[in-house]
């Protein structure tokens, strides 16, 4: 297969996955929410909301077609990589623009009663601690240990290599050191994430939140372990190439990358089908009980995407649009985590750029 065919295939898969997710998300959203805005449990069933959802579907299909056309046109003009990047940029920026357009349209529908509901919050008094946190802590310990060991092994091995760039050898162990413990840390934070409960639902809403949160925690823990395994094997293969023990990475590493991706995507589809956003599909019978706990408070959400509440000690809260959890940007610990991750990521990018600029490769 030529490079152009592979690149076009990647772009097509990306458009189908991202565009498909955008199409599905409004269908699995917790009742009361409409494109990141809380409009109340009854309003989401009315005609105005239905019309918005219909227009969203058409907008998503047009966006998918547009990003594919632009990407493939540039690719066929002889620049496949530029086509891939442009198509992806059109998809992501267009998706964001589409979302924001519908978010502001939904905000116009918010009735005054929704603001009153936002003042209420409910919490379970019984039920024990968070589930899945044991596996997440185990993943954090193991991933950190293995990633540090791989990093040290790469440094030590560099001395024994013939003519290899230091950056090329250290890049993947550095990625491992950053990403696999980060995923495990996300799993630990998810295990203790804020639950947005429907008060007066007879406990079913809490059960749904607990089940969803535990499933997301386990997925992130397993992802941390798989990513750590993948990057560790990749690091060792790169070192072996450097020592001239093998000639190439081999097919096995790409098969493993495919398995990690398939595991993630498969589980995400399972969660979407089985739970919905925050367990929305499990609490369908309780939808008449209004949503509470910050998720219903439009004033605490910027564009329906960023939750900011300095008083709330929660580090992670349920996302309003999308599946899973997001950070409380009013929390100091959350901001420290974001800052640390950004600094380390930028450091890695700088390392890669520096290596390329000095001709290391």
């Amino acid at each position, binding site marked *: 297969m030529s490079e152009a065919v592979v690149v076009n295939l990647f772009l097509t898969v990306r458009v189908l996955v991202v565009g498909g997710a955008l199409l599905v998300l409004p269908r699995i959203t917790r009742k009361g929410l409409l494109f990141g805005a809380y409009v109340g449990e009854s309003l989401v069933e009315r005609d105005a909301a239905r019309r918005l959802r219909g227009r969203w579907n058409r907008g998503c299909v047009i966006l998918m077609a547009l990003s594919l056309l632009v990407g493939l046109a540039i690719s066929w003009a002889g620049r496949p990589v530029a086509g891939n990047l442009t198509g992806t940029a059109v998809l992501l920026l267009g998706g964001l623009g589409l979302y924001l357009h519908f978010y502001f349209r939904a905000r116009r529908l918010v009735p005054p009663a929704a603001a009153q509901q936002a003042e209420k*919050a409910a*919490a379970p*008094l*019984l039920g024990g601690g968070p589930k899945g946190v044991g596996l997440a802590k185990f993943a954090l310990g193991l991933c950190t240990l293995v990633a540090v060991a791989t990093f040290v092994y790469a440094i030590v091995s560099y001395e024994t290599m013939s003519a290899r760039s230091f950056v090329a050898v250290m890049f993947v162990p550095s990625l491992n050191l950053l990403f696999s413990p980060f995923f495990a840390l996300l799993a630990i934070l998810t295990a203790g994430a*804020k639950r947005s409960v429907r008060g007066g639902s007879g406990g079913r809403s809490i059960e749904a939140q607990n089940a969803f949160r535990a499933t997301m925690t386990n997925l992130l823990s397993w992802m941390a372990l798989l990513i750590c395994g993948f990057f560790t094997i990749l690091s060792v293969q790169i070192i072996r190439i450097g020592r001239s023990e093998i000639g190439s990475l081999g097919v096995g590493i790409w098969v493993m990358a495919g398995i990690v991706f398939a595991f993630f995507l498969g589980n995400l589809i399972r969660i979407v089908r089985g739970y919905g956003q925050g367990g929305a599909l499990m609490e369908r019978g309780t939808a008449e009980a209004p949503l509470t706990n910050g998720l219903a408070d439009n004033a605490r959400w910027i564009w329906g995407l960023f939750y900011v509440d300095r*008083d*709330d*000690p929660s580090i992670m809260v349920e996302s309003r649009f999308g599946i899973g959890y997001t950070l409380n940007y009013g929390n100091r610990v959350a901001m420290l985590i974001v800052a640390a991750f950004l600094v380390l990521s930028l450091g890695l990018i700088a390392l890669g750029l520096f290596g390329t600029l000095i001709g290391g490769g």
Partner: protein
Amino acid sequence: MLTLTIDRSLDHPVYEQVADQVRRLVASGALAPGTPLPSVRQLAGDLGVNLNTIARAYRLLEGEGFLVIRDRAGVVVAAPAEEIGHSARDELLDQMRAILARLRQAGMATDELLPIMRREVLAMDGGGKESDDE
């Protein structure tokens, strides 16, 4: 499942709303002695309120003998005291008299007050269900 609910739009402070509900649940038997409660961080996170708000409610309830706060074991419901000191009892009776006086001043007659008080006391002795969830 027992649920604690707060409403920030009320004039009643949040820590008092929390304390009132826990008191009622303990008194009705819905929360039995020894039952563990969520940690300050967990409850504050779930409700989306400041840590100090829940800590204040828990300290208040500990002072009143409803909860026991242990460093490692967390917060558990306290067993009822076997006997009450004279001064503590007199203080509580004074509070009850003050509340009765306010109710009378608010316009409630004796024949309205007595059945309500009887129902509340009986609910504490046998009915653990009425405060459940909500």
